[in-house]
């Protein structure tokens, strides 16, 4: 028993372990950064509610967490791009800035 406990760290495949940790770190980093991943999770939450897989309480608990993460990601992205103050708002809500209109019809393509 003692031998096993002591032996464990030595006998574990270290390279494999490092690989796993690296993967976890990559995943965490990517998840944190990936706005789309959070959007997908929001969509999934919505679908789960509509399909009856979760109830209103579950939804009400999880939605704010996801939205908060979405806000964090956006804030960090903006910080990284070092945008000026009047660009801190998303274009839809930024009534003071110069905005241009883009009309897209994916229907044509």
């Amino acid at each position, binding site marked *: 028993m003692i031998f096993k406990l002591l032996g464990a760290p030595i006998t574990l495949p270290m390279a494999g372990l490092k690989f796993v940790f690296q993967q976890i770190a990559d995943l965490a980093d990517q998840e944190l950064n990936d706005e789309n991943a959070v959007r997908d999770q*929001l969509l999934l939450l919505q679908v*789960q509610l509509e399909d009856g897989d979760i109830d209103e309480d579950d939804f009400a608990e999880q939605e704010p967490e996801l939205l908060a993460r979405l806000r964090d990601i956006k804030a960090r992205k903006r910080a990284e791009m070092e945008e000026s103050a009047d660009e801190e708002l998303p274009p839809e809500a930024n009534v003071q800035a110069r905005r241009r209109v883009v009309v897209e019809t994916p*229907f044509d393509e």
Partner: protein
Amino acid sequence: MVDISVPESLEGPLPSAQDSETGIYVYSIIECPEPRTFGKIGIGGRGDGVYTVHYKDLAAVVSRSLLVVYDPTRENVLAHEHVNEVIIEEGFTPVPMSFGTLFKTEKDIVEFLEDTYDALRDVLVKMKDKLEFGLRVNWAREEVLAEIERDDEGIRRLKEEISKSQQSSTYFARMQLGRMVEQALADKSDAYVRDIYEYLREAAIASRSNKPIGDKMIMNAAFLVERDKAGQFDQKVTEIAQRYEGKLSFRYTGPWPPYNFVTIRLQLERSAVV
């Protein structure tokens, strides 16, 4: 794609207490020469009235709102969608604005309509009397799996071999079985989706396939349908759903404005970018 510049509405820095100010939220653009109201159903939970702001024969469907960044919460998105639903019920074909679109004043909206008039008219003509329907299909994976194991000769035989054999070589046979089953499931899913599209195609003008959400969903599509063919499309959806009863479950929504077929969004102009 059409880009049109909107003139700067106001000079000066952004006020710090922006949320104490009010602006105007825009839901969609419709063809409507006369002023209209659509009830006190505006976004933001204050019971703001929904009304129209006009330029020539075009109108923006709007309500007063605090100047805030609207989070895409279920509540906010449903409020936005509900306004468009009401407009559709009133017989209009709205071209939707991006969720969360705000302007400072009605004058800014009139300028936006004026500057974008030609592009908006084009899109409205193109979308006239066309509505969107959503179709999401989930599968009962276990049912389909049982069917595969019953009907697929190769899989059935391999399964029998494995159950008879006591040898360690079954490990590889099991691996192979797993791969064959996965492949058969993927083929089934593709075949279902193809068949559903094929069946509905003639009743629709266009379709768009979005990424399925979660692992139960095999199809997440939007269909553009003529308003007067909506009944026919409904019928076809009912028929195809009956054909696959027990294996697939259909979630059919609409009519929606053509969210998946037109978008009007605002972009920040970056003067520094050439």
